[in-house]
């Protein structure tokens, strides 16, 4: 028979393993979402750079496709693993985050340049918050993209900022997704 200290150690091992399994499940589906959002952010920025007058419409399309894509990814993951990682509460959370972002843009009277950096910084803030709860990968990805976005805002002139953001935001999410997949 073992003593209570050894039993506590065994329970701690069990809890740590269960935490790792849950984190791994979240990383599996999140990495797919990050790859998808990375490609969409890249396309949105590049399209905005080519046709700046229609930038707003491109971003509406990007957000609509990403919402549908996210639902499809969650359903695909669930059918494959029978584990429900995301549900309707997450969609509601995303909708509230988007609504507050629109509220900020409307009352903040941001310039197009400010809006270009506001949205990635704002969304990456939530990645960092997710990192506190679900795993440091989110924290690192969020902090890196925010830092690079601010560097671009300070040093990349004019509409070239969109090319910078395509690489930093789109590319950053793709690299982050691939890294998360390997974690």
């Amino acid at each position: 028979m073992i003593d209570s200290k050894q039993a506590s150690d065994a329970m701690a091992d069990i809890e740590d393993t269960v935490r790792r399994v849950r984190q791994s499940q979240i990383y599996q589906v999140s990495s797919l979402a990050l790859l998808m959002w990375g490609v969409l952010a890249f396309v949105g920025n590049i399209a905005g750079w080519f046709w700046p007058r229609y930038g707003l419409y491109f971003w509406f399309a990007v957000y609509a496709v990403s919402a549908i894509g996210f639902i499809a990814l969650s359903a695909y993951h669930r059918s494959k693993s029978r584990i429900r990682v995301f549900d309707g509460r997450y969609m509601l959370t995303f909708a509230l985050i988007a609504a507050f972002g629109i509220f900020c843009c409307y009352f903040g009277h941001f310039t197009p340049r400010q809006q270009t950096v506001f949205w990635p910084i704002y969304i990456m803030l939530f990645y960092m918050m997710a990192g506190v709860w679900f795993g440091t990968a989110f924290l690192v990805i969020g902090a890196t993209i925010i830092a690079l976005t601010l560097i671009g805002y300070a040093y990349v002139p004019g509409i070239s900022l969109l090319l910078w953001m395509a690489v930093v935001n789109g590319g950053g999410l793709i690299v982050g997704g691939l890294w998360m997949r390997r974690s």
Partner: protein
Amino acid sequence: MAELDDIIHQPLRLKIMAALNALPAEVGLEFARLKKLTGATDGNLGAHIETLAKAGYVSVDKAFVGKKPQTTVTATAAGRGAFTRHVATLQEIIAGKQV
């Protein structure tokens, strides 16, 4: 008075069973992911999975995904039951109900 399960109690086997038990019934983990989650080496993990399989606590399925062989380990109903009893016994020891 419940007894600790000697097969599950070994530290690596405890981690394997904890990982598999965290998944829904009949959902397994690939060998590579189990290796990453438990931090075990290939040989060590394989040997302990075999011990658990001989006890009827896990099932091992080998299949090809494309051209790559893939081994999936799943906790059986007996394995889940044994793990639940083992955890209950650990909790009793912590609570001081067993010495």
